[in-house]
């Protein structure tokens, strides 16, 4: 089942003399259980494509279908709510909230996605179990290594069982072993949960886990 469809999407960032065509007639799709690598150099438009796919940016042209809904037809508040329910994010820096423990960081996402708090806590426990990071639950981000932080970030992206996980250079800040562990965790757990994964990267360590690789050059896919 297709969870993300971009069809002829264009997007210009900035204005006036600083305007840049970040996406040009970009089209791609991601299906459930797929891990799709979006490969391109810095400035190729990878992050803009992820932002458009998540409904955080509105395309100038083209259409975006996310989990069956056309984002351009939704209001900003509806897009935000839809995103919360069907998208999980993994950022280049894990971007965990310093004031919260690992477990609370993940629980927060589960709570934002809605549902009773008891279910949110159970879902948090499950994803910690699945990623084998129970020992990190009580620690704060400042007490974690880069790889551990990113595995908690993966847990946060998956806890509410999203249809689509968008990952932006998830292994960019990690060394060889840590990067491989995170890549494997992201790919296997997302697949196990039936989520499609779109990873913006130029890290070859992710290739063994990919279903497809899509190059992006100057905003064109």
């Amino acid at each position, binding site marked *: 089942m297709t969870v993300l469809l971009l069809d002829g999407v264009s997007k210009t960032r900035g204005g006036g003399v600083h305007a840049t065509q970040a996406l040009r007639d970009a089209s791609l799709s991601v299906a459930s259980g797929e891990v799709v690598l979006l490969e391109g150099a810095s400035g190729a438009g990878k992050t803009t494509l992820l932002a458009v796919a998540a409904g955080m940016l509105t395309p100038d042209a083209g259409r975006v279908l996310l989990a069956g809904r056309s984002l351009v037809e939704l209001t900003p508040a509806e897009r935000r709510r839809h995103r919360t329910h069907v998208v999980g994010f993994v*950022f280049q820096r894990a971007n965990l909230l310093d*004031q919260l423990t690992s477990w609370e960081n993940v629980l927060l996402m589960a709570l*934002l996605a809605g549902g009773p708090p008891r279910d949110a806590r159970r879902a948090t426990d499950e994803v910690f179990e699945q990623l084998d990071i129970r020992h990190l639950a009580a620690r704060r981000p400042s007490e974690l290594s880069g790889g551990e932080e990113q595995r908690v970030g993966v847990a946060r992206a998956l806890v509410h069982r999203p249809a689509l996980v968008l990952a932006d250079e998830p292994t960019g800040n990690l060394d060889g072993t840590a990067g491989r562990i995170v890549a494997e965790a992201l790919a296997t757990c997302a697949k196990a949960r039936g989520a499609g994964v779109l990873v913006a990267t130029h890290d070859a360590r992710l290739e063994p886990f990919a279903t497809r690789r899509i190059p992006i050059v100057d905003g064109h896919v």
Partner: protein
Amino acid sequence: MKAVRNRRARAWLAVGGVATSSLLVISLVATLRGAARTVVDYVGQDGADLWITPPGADHFLRLSGVIPAALTDSVRALSGVAGADFIFRAFVAVSARPRGDRFRLTLYGVGYRAPDGLGGPPAFESGQPPHTRREVALDRAAARRLGVTLRDTVFVNGRAARVVGVTAGTNLLTTQFIFADAAAIEALSGFAGRASFILVRLAPGAHADTVAARIRDRFPDVDVFDRATFVANSQRETGVGYTPILAFVDLLGIGAAAVLVALLIHALVEGHRTELAVLLAIGTAPGTLARVMILEATRLIVVGGVLGAALARLLAWVLDRVFPVIPLHFDIGDTVWALALLIVCGILASAIPVARLGRVDPLEAFRP
């Protein structure tokens, strides 16, 4: 809320700042209340049912003018009057040593028919009323400042007098009362045969308005006020001098607290930009974040405000025992008003940095 809450040290610093402002505001209002309370206690004392005053003098404080002391006997003879005594008030210089002492206080001297005439001290901390022209009863704050106690000698306009009583509820903040026999104060001030006021005690069953009208008919050159009116006028007069200054300083205090809270919320927004961007990216509504920020501001103000109110009480307790010069009287209504004003101003001030949340772009979460 915990996700974007201030770091503990910074939050406590802000709470300390708000508490200081709250302490300032509540204490200043309490000083005004304390001075007003003194006036109410003295002017509203039992037995002084009517106040006869020089023309135009509708309150106890700060007005000149005298009336003949001999009028007192004529008033006593009127129907409906159970008793009448005159008092003479004058500012007097009081020191603990004879002439040449550099430290002296200018006190509010009240001469009355000692020891038990109307217009005497409303309450005693220790000792008794003066019985002779060489005895005085002195306010406790003045006694403390002069370093004298019971049976010590003070010099009133250079003349020696023994302290036989230390009075309470007689501190007007800028000055304090000293009580002596009327003849002594008259002699010191050079106004023999004159009175500042005549206080009238009504006979049982007599009506204040009727007796006041009788006095006005008989003595058209004086004014007459019932106790409640004279108390209210004197209370109003207490605030006239202080209120604008207190209000100004209070506003500065509240303004400082509001700016402090706004600064803290500003630091919260700017210091947590990435976290806020992440929260927005993963689906937190901007309105929710704004509410959290406003709640955080409210939390700081309420904790600081209540702490300041408690500190004000503690300060008053300590001052009363260690250095009872400032009369503080707390009114729960004043405290509630001060806290409400602090909360409203703090929230309004924090709305400015909260509005800056709109500038946080969720895409910032993607920046490495």
